[in-house]
């Protein structure tokens, strides 16, 4: 609960409202696919780790696989790297069928969650390892290693052994090593999980910067919703081995296709209800949790009487002491808690139905006296075009 409330900051200053890089998204719309995952299944005994997944990742994209632990995201990544063979389905990389190709023959490289740096080799030797396997001339290897170490700003540490580096430096060695061979695709397994929060946030943007400079397609596995939002052009949300939705961070946040996505991606107030009126230009939803019906200004593809869920983002709710002058899209309750986070505050409003609504407001004025406080009776309202309705 507290976690969820803290993450209400997602739509705040850290988030990018329009995808991650609008230009990049446009450019990539016409880019050709680099990875095609075609109806892939992977089972371990009885357990279905990846369940009929199909996915296309475009050239130059920074793509994130997001999901909780055990959702199959890492298994999918390991199948791209070649460490696991799919039980069924095909994987194409750069147009070639790689389903049964060994890891050492694939044009992809992986950055491991543990970094997997060779402890008996210097930083330089670690970065050069892949190039040596290709039998490149020594001078070229030296140049490429220097280039990579410059890219991650580790040139002064070339002669050190990995255990003499900090966590952040090791992470950069791992990145340099996996990029040294100029792979078609770089696979990153929880690349920032081992770093502390501050360093992680800084490194997220650094990674994006490096990706833009080298132009390589990145596929990042992460369980961190904020990390996926910060870094990725597109995000695939996975649950129990299936892909639930693939879209830009913006679309996932504003147009979730399921309850799962709405709840997983950011914080949301979710109210179950029944569709009581379904017209082409509007719908009405009645919920036991809300005193007034919910009006939405467009039609949805569901039958009248169907159970639907109303998803309301905390920042799209407004809070006031005056009763809204309309018949729908508002409710009232008591302020139960106020979480002050500096830039924003989250109000926990206990509605008269007993349901809880979380409302975030921006603290725009430094000197403003908060006029709403604990145990106040308030009205919570929202605009009809800010309502997301999901059916499952």
């Amino acid at each position, binding site marked *: 609960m507290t976690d969820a409330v803290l993450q209400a900051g997602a739509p705040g200053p850290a988030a990018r409202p329009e995808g991650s890089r609008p230009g990049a998204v446009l450019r990539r719309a016409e880019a050709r696919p680099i990875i095609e995952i075609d109806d892939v299944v992977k089972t371990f005994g009885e357990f279905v780790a990846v369940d009929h997944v199909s996915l296309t990742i475009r050239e130059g994209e920074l793509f994130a696989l997001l999901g909780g632990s055990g959702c199959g995201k890492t298994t999918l990544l390991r199948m791209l*790297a*070649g*460490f696991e063979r799919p039980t069924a389905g095909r994987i194409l990389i750069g147009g070639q069928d790689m389903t049964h190709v*060994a*890891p*050492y*023959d694939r044009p*992809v*490289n*992986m950055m*491991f969650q*543990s970094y*997997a*740096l*060779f*402890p*008996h080799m*210097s930083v330089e030797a670690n970065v050069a*390892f*892949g190039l040596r*396997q*290709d039998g490149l001339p020594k001078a070229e290897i030296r140049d490429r290693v220097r280039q990579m170490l410059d890219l991650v700003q580790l040139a002064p540490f070339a*002669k*050190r*052994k990995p255990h*003499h580096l900090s966590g952040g430096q090791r992470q950069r060695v791992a990145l340099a*090593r*996996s990029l040294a*061979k100029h792979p078609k695709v770089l696979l990153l397994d929880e690349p920032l999980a081992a770093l502390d929060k501050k360093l992680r946030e800084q490194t997220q943007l650094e990674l994006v910067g490096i990706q833009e400079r080298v132009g390589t397609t990145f596929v990042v596995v992460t369980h961190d919703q904020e990390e996926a939002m910060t870094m990725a052009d597109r995000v695939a949300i996975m649950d129990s081995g299936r892909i639930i939705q693939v879209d830009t961070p913006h679309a996932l946040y504003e147009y979730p296709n399921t309850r799962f996505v709405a709840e997983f991606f950011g914080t949301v107030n979710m109210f179950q209800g029944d569709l009581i009126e379904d017209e082409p230009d509007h719908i009405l939803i009645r919920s036991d949790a809300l005193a007034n019906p919910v009006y939405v200004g467009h039609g949805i593809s569901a039958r009248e009487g169907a159970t639907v869920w109303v998803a309301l983002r905390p920042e799209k709710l407004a809070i006031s002491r005056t009763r809204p002058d309309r018949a729908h899209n508002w409710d009232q309750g008591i302020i139960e808690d106020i979480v002050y986070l500096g830039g924003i505050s989250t109000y926990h409003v206990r509605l008269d139905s007993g349901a809880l609504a979380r409302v975030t407001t921006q603290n725009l004025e430094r000197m403003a006296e908060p006029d709403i406080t604990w145990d106040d009776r308030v009205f919570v309202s929202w605009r009809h075009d800010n309502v997301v309705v999901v059916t499952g």
Partner: protein
Amino acid sequence: MSAPSDSPRDAPPAAGPLARSEAEQAWSRAGWSDGDDRRLTRLQRLTARFGRGTVIGVPYLWLLLFFLLPFLIVLKISFAEFRLGLPPYTPLLEWIDGTYLQIRLALGNYQFLLEDPLYITAYLNSLKVAFFSTVFALLIGYPMAYAIARSKPSLRAVFLLLVILPFWTSFLIRVYAWIGILKNNGLINNGLMALGLIDEPLPLLNTEFSLYVGIVYSYLPFMVLPLYATLEKMDTSLIEAAADLGCRPFKAFLTVTLPLSLPGIVAGSMLVFIPAVGEFVIPDLLGGAGTLMIGKVLWSEFFNNRDWPVASAVAIAMLIFLVIPIVVFQHYQQKQAERAEES
């Protein structure tokens, strides 16, 4: 507790000492002062030292009583001369006429070791046998340890138990069992003859072959266990990383697994090599009359010739021969490890 004195800029100068004394008062009221604190830690330090002393002291005492003292007695005897009687050697210290103390160091035993080629040949042969036994044990033990370390975790305990299981039978019985397997009408020869592959028994027992079989078989667990320990804790993602970077499995083994398992190889080799040099039972039972190993020579000096001084000299010389290279090797290893730490 020194917070007020840490930030003199924030407080007016006069308030500094006042604030501090107030704080000190508060601390002593609460029953905590610097003095108390120090006394407490001194007491703790004393008990800690006592506890540590006991823990380290017991094994040291044990080694002193049962290793160092016997060793010094053997050293003493090695400088004596053979005589008929009890004990069968001349004393080191002797009162002459009750007036002066005589110390007699007879170096003849050591000279004798150098003069008679038997001893040098036996030493060199022991080193040779121990070296090749170690190599064979490594060649057999490494794949075993690797397979166990890479097997399913649930099976690992079973495999390890199988490696350790022979220890539950007496060492001597196991060596005798090999006689039963290798002798002329033993398991192998009878089996091969029954199959019609050979007409007369192969001479297996009392050969170099049976000697190596015995030593490698007996010491294999000492090679497998340390190797398993290093291989088991190795991060398998390192091998995946090597494969990911384009390295084929065998090369990945040579460039990643093998160098990282070096500590296990060294430990296992030491555990096989050192006891194998002085091995007596196996060469005596399986090696036959022609096998010249220093352990056997030592035994016959002691029990057949009853020449305790020469036997002791053989033992001391063997120890020096063995200890010096080991110490040098250890020193080198440590230096290398330190260098690796620094770089």
